[in-house]
């Protein structure tokens, strides 16, 4: 019944309208398929060795510009005068530009980020208090997934004006453990035990050499820095194992961590000078 209604409606259309409609449909479908095909061929064959980030940017450029071209072609088929449309678009563009200064700022920041490449897809970065893996770098913002599986969108403008730490940029990192040992400990023994912990840890690199530094005399103990190098993918294994190793070895060697404490030492009992009242009472006492 419904199909019959459509057929009847088509019969009411003039051949000219039908032809134009068909051409519009073919242009739209073929255009979109071609854009998609171009994106796939570029990704698979021409950019096989490019970085993920570069591939994503090229895919988006092809997708967006191809879509605009297809829309323009369809409008042309529909008989819309493009010169007038582009003129109107220019005026609208100025108006929209004034109204969307923040977005423009983000886009320009995005272009700077793309050219500067402080990070790439898959890197782990820290911005402010947020740490996560970069999932997408777009013109307006970057999207990251935090380690507790939250999706965070950060505007490019904010990234450009903030301190960004790329945690996984380099292949190796150093894990710094800072703690205090009690005053009175044999520091040479502490140093030897820490050197053994570093040597026996399966994730710790022996080159660059581990750093053991007695850095400061603190209120409750001597501050020690143990810096161990590791391959960036081993962070969790490394940190867990070395924390446990230090605690176990210190316990076995009877080396004590420093805890905040206050020693209260009372004065030795001795004869005090009599207070004024006592002296007065003494004077008043009749002999």
């Amino acid at each position, binding site marked *: 019944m419904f199909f019959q209604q459509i057929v009847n409606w088509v019969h009411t259309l003039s051949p000219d309208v039908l032809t134009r409609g068909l051409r519009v449909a073919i242009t739209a479908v073929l255009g979109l398929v071609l854009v998609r095909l171009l994106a796939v061929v570029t990704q698979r064959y021409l950019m096989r060795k490019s970085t993920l980030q570069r591939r994503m940017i090229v895919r988006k450029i092809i997708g967006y510009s191809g879509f605009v071209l297809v829309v323009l072609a369809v409008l042309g088929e529909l008989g819309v005068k493009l010169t007038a449309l582009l003129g109107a678009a220019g005026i609208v563009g100025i108006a929209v530009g004034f109204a969307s200064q923040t977005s423009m700022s983000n886009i320009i920041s995005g272009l700077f980020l793309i050219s500067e490449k402080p990070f790439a897809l898959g890197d782990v970065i820290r911005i402010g208090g947020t740490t996560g893996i970069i999932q997408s770098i777009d013109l307006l913002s970057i999207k990251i997934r935090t380690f507790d599986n939250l999706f965070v969108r950060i505007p490019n403008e904010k990234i450009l004006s903030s301190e960004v730490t790329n945690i996984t940029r380099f*292949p*190796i990192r150093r894990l710094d453990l800072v703690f205090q040992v009690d005053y009175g400990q044999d520091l040479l023994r502490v140093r030897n035990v820490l050197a053994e912990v570093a*040597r026996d840890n399966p994730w710790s*690199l*022996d*080159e*660059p050499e581990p*750093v053991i530094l007695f850095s400061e005399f603190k209120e409750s103990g001597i501050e020690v820095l143990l810096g161990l190098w590791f*391959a960036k993918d081993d962070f969790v294994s490394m940190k867990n194992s070395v924390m446990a190793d230090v605690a176990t070895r210190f316990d076995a060697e009877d080396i004590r961590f420093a805890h905040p404490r206050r020693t209260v030492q009372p004065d030795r009992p001795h004869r005090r000078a009599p207070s004024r009242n006592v002296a007065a009472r003494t004077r008043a006492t009749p002999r």
Partner: protein
Amino acid sequence: MDRTGISVWEAVDIPHRKCLQWRFPARSIWVERVETEWHVLSLPERARDRSAYRRVVARSQKPASSEWRHYLHRAGGLMQPSPVLPDRPVVIRPDRALTLLPGQSTVFYLGIPVWFRLSAAGPRAARVFDEPLSVLTRTWFGDPVTGELCWGLATRLHHSLDSVDASVDCAICPLMIENESETDLDFQKICIHVENLSVFRGRERLWTNSLHAVFQGPDQVTQIEITHEPPGFEEGLVQVSDARQPAAGWSIRRTFGMLKYFTDF
């Protein structure tokens, strides 16, 4: 025990309802065939005994452990153990400082610890697993930005083959070095790309391809060439494993570590 010494690397048919133990100086490998699965266990050896053997044990005597790994492979029968070289380059740190004077050349015999690879032999050949037989340290060769992750090995630099102990879990890598520069060549460490080398089996020893390095100065690229024929130090060598990544050689600016890399302090 049914095999000792170098013959532990021979193919074996694991009897039904039996367990096989390969015992090496630092590690034991236990393998059992159960229906269509291979059950494998790798345990460190704590005894200081340097012997190596293979023996069949009853299933009741196999070690109880939750770390048995199971591999599904329908074709049973003959198993081929083979020594393969580690999966990353090995940085060799000599036990003593040695300087090769300009115009001099020498041959070093380096003992590279091998890994144990078990493959199912026959028409349906398949690699079952690889397992290191010695614990090597992790180390970094190069600067912290462009260097590479390697295994570290502190060892003696043997000038003579007589001083190298015959060992079934180490392959000897003959390295010939010529110092064609006008500067002294100080060995602090040498990076060997063992993933490019094959392993050969001799009467008592395992061997790798020979290497030939020409040092032309600290600022020059050092070319390391791999000799693809078996090393000529022993007759009748048989290749027992291929290189993980076959190559004709490698060139690297810092094959010889002459600099202490920074530790950021």
